[in-house]
């Protein structure tokens, strides 16, 4: 098993345990909130499990940044993420597919950045820098 496959399988296992979803739901494209029904408190649970499974420390906000859509962030105008906001997202969550959001930068699409694939990329980078 390649390391990429191994990471995917461990991330899938983590989500199955944390969210009580079936294994066939946890496809790489699946969004955590929209498809898998994750709520804010689940992110804490997921981070705890990843830290244990991969034996790494994940500082707060590194995997799942908070306050991205805050009204006072200055990166949202008329319910749409601004170009500056998109740049900020590229810096803060380089593991997410910001290009996809840029194609339709509505605020409500921000949560769709959190996918199974995004978590795998994050873990892969994290393990490489370990």
């Amino acid at each position, binding site marked *: 098993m390649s390391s990429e496959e191994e990471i995917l399988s461990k991330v899938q296992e983590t989500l199955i*345990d*944390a969210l009580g979803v079936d294994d066939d739901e946890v496809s790489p494209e699946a969004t955590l909130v929209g498809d898998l029904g994750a709520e804010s*408190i*689940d992110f*804490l*649970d997921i981070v*705890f499990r990843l*830290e244990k499974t991969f034996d790494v420390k994940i500082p*707060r906000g590194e995997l799942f940044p908070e306050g991205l859509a805050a009204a006072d962030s200055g990166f949202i105008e008329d319910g749409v993420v601004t170009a500056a906001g998109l740049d900020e997202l590229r810096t803060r969550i380089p593991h997410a597919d910001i290009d996809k959001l840029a194609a339709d930068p509505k605020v409500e699409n921000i949560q769709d950045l959190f996918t199974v694939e995004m978590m795998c990329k994050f873990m892969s980078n994290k393990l490489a820098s370990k």
Partner: protein
Amino acid sequence: MRWFWVDRFVEFKSGVSATSIKNVSLAEEHLHDHFPGFAVMPGSLILEGLAQTGGILLGEKNNFDHIVVLAKVPKIKYHSYACPGDQLRYHTELVESSHEGGRVACTAHVGERLVAEAEIIFAHLDSMDESMSQSIDQKNFVFEMGLMSILDVDAISQAVNSDS
């Protein structure tokens, strides 16, 4: 009635584990309805006792600087019952802890019999939401207000038992 679902701590290893006991009594009103002719402690209250034990374990690790709230129960399995006269022994181990909260693994036993096992996640409310830390006066919150007096019971018990 007060919302105390443990009677006494019997072992406390700071940041590691905590064990408490709960004596089930027929004086508890709800046991007469749960269920008529079959008095057993509601599973939800066993979970509450485990959460109070684990919550204090996590809170103490951080000198009660955070407002600890039960956030999620990823796993709870009931294996057996506890009825009046039984003494439940709640054992909790702190598996994870961070600035944002923590996770405990716990069991409830009556004697050697496993009654329940659970995993509980707590969040530090003040860390999750800054508006909360301003609107809730820590001194009035559960740990300061009353729940912490459970730890005093241990001291009373030691004093009473050492006299005899």
